[in-house]
Structure formats: structure tokens, C-alpha cells
């Protein structure tokens, strides 16, 4: 465990109380340990600011990922004091425990290095859940009109603001216990497609989420909805998929719900 002097590189004078004890996961793949840094506390500061400060002022080899810094790109998610958060919009003051922060790579995903998780399994599952859009018309045909009031459209709209941050996926205990489980984000995406009248074969979406690794594994505990920083509700989307698949099982309907 190493301690660094934050005063050495920081121009602002800070007193003892203004220091944050930040332990950051360092390591490659499965191996590593937490390394402690002392970071000047600011009045207004996000967890991503803290990580960036460490990387710029103390250790340029610290690896992490971010892009937009305004909660749009979904690339900055990390575990903060054991809970998944979008770090660019998480205020340090709201999450510190006794002036301390522990920052680690996202749960339920392999770690590439330090705070950068490997997102491949997360996105592979989007495809496995039928998340690829298969249009019902070709580009030569006129665009199908969809009324904003259409019930399917209203339902789909609830899930389309997903920023693919994987916070819900990291929060899900079922993913932790059943690593093949498609997880909340991919299933929510499937639910938006199932409700999209422009999708050619909506039964195919249901079939994709009804396999061994599909929506029926969900225990309905709702960590996904609890933690989604965009206030989306994957839990209800999954409940919708369960209902729709049960209906299609009972009535053997190959038609769309319309």
C-alpha cells in the first residue's frame, strides 16, 4: 500500500480535513489490490474528477474510461464504495464514508486493467437478446408511421434512453450467480424492440429471451431499477417480457400483439 503526498503537485493549499482517502483498484485481469491515494477534497467534485486528479497528478499509468463527462456516453461507470455508479455524475460528498472512497472496476465483468472493465460480455448479450434491429421494411419503401400515442410506442419509449453504462448489470445479483444470464440492460432493449411495430419479427425477440439464459431467470428484486442512473426501469421491462412470453406460450400466437 502506497501513500502519496497530494500537496506536492497541487497548487491549492489544503488543510488536513480537506484530504480524501481514496483507495483505487490497481491490477490487470483477475489479480490486483487496492492502492491508497490522498486527494484534495473540493467543494464540488465528482468521483470521476477524483480519478482524473490521481491520473494527472500522481500516477499517469492509472487506466480508466470516460468520454462525455455529462452522463451521456455511459463509459465511466465504476464501483464506488461497493455500489455501481456513473462516476461523472456522482458527487463525492454524497458517497464518501467517513471521508473515504473506494473505487473499483465494475462488478460482473472481467477487468482489463485498473478501473477499466471489459464490456464485451455486456454487449455480446445485447445481441444474444435479439437486440439487433431487423426492420420490417426496406429503405425503398416509405417509412412506417408510428403514432407517439400508440401503446407499444409509449412502452418502448420508457426504455430507449439507456446509455449502455452497465450499472444495472453490475448491480444484478442474478448476473453474479448465473454468469450466462442476459442481464437487465439487454433484456430492456429486447422489450423496446418487442414493442416497436417497425421490427419485423417480434416473436423472434421473445424467442431469443426465452432460452435458458433469458428473462425467466430474473428474481424481480429490482437492483437494476434501483441503481439505473437514468432512472429507467429494466425490472418492469423484464416483467413485460415474462408476461408476453407466457402469453405466447399459452396461446401459441405467432402474431404480433396488435
Amino acid at each position, binding site marked *: 500500500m502506497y501513500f502519496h503526498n497530494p500537496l506536492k503537485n497541487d497548487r491549492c493549499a489544503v488543510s488536513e480535513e480537506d484530504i480524501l482517502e481514496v483507495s483505487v483498484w490497481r491490477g490487470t485481469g483477475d489479480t490486483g489490490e487496492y492502492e491508497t491515494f490522498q486527494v484534495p477534497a473540493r467543494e464540488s467534485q465528482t468521483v470521476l474528477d477524483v480519478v482524473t486528479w490521481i491520473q494527472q497528478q500522481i500516477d499517469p499509468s492509472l487506466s480508466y474510461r470516460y468520454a462525455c463527462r455529462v452522463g451521456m456516453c455511459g463509459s465511466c461507470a465504476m464501483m464506488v464504495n461497493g455500489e455501481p455508479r456513473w462516476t461523472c455524475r456522482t458527487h463525492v460528498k454524497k458517497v464518501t464514508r467517513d471521508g473515504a472512497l473506494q473505487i473499483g472496476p465494475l462488478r460482473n465483468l472481467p477487468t482489463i486493467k485498473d478501473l477499466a472493465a471489459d464490456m464485451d460480455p455486456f454487449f455480446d448479450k445485447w445481441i444474444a437478446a435479439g437486440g439487433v434491429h431487423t426492420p420490417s421494411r426496406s429503405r425503398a419503401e416509405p417509412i412506417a408511421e408510428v403514432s407517439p400515442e400508440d401503446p407499444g410506442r409509449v412502452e418502448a419509449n420508457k426504455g430507449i434512453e439507456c446509455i449502455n453504462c452497465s450499472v444495472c448489470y453490475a448491480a444484478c445479483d442474478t448476473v453474479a*450467480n*448465473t454468469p450466462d444470464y442476459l442481464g437487465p440492460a439487454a433484456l430492456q432493449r429486447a422489450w423496446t424492440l418487442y414493442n416497436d411495430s417497425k421490427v419485423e419479427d417480434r416473436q423472434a425477440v421473445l424467442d431469443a429471451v426465452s432460452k435458458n439464459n433469458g428473462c425467466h431467470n430474473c428474481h424481480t428484486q429490482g437492483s437494476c431499477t434501483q441503481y439505473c442512473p437514468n432512472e429507467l426501469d429494466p425490472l418492469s421491462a423484464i416483467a413485460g417480457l415474462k408476461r408476453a*412470453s*407466457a402469453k405466447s*406460450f399459452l396461446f401459441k400466437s405467432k402474431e404480433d400483439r396488435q
Partner: protein
Amino acid sequence: MNLGLYMAQRLSAMVMVPLVFGHLGVMIYAIQGGLTTAEILERTMGSLWWFLFYGCFVVAVSIHSAIGMRVIVHEVLKLRGLALELVMWAFGISILFLGARAVMAVTML
């Protein structure tokens, strides 16, 4: 868990709901009226209705609990593939066997 198992577990639960209440009612009735074992057996022996009532109960419980067990064994012990299916079937068949023996003992002459 796939859709087939999910439906089997939900449908068996639906079958169990009225049967559980029926079973509780029967127990309360039997105790309040002070029925002896002999009196109970007198009513159940040779009764097709009691055979069907508890027979359905046992079948539903076997299906429901075996699928639930499968989930627990998969998530806690990380068992998967053929081993997982075998555990589910072995558990379900054992419960079915034990339950069927009990039902036959009290309803068949």
C-alpha cells in the same frame, strides 16, 4: 431457467393455491372435530375424490419444488448442464415417489 420451466413452475403454483387452502381447511376441521386416525382413514380410504385431491397436490408440489431446487442448486452450487438436469429430475421424482406412497396409503383400500 427457460420459458418451459418457467411456465411449469407458474402453472403448478396456480394448481397448488386452492389445494393448499383445501389442505389447511381439512386439517383444521379434522382437529376441531376431534377425529381419530381411524375416523380419518374411514373417510379417505377408497375415496376417489381424496385420491384426486392429494394426488394433484403431490404432482404439483413435485414439479414446483424440483424447478425451484434447480435454480437454487444452479445459483448456489454453480451446477450446470446434465448434472443440473439430473438433480432436478432426481429431486422431483423422489418427492413424487414419497408423496404418491402417502396418498396411496390413505386412499387405497
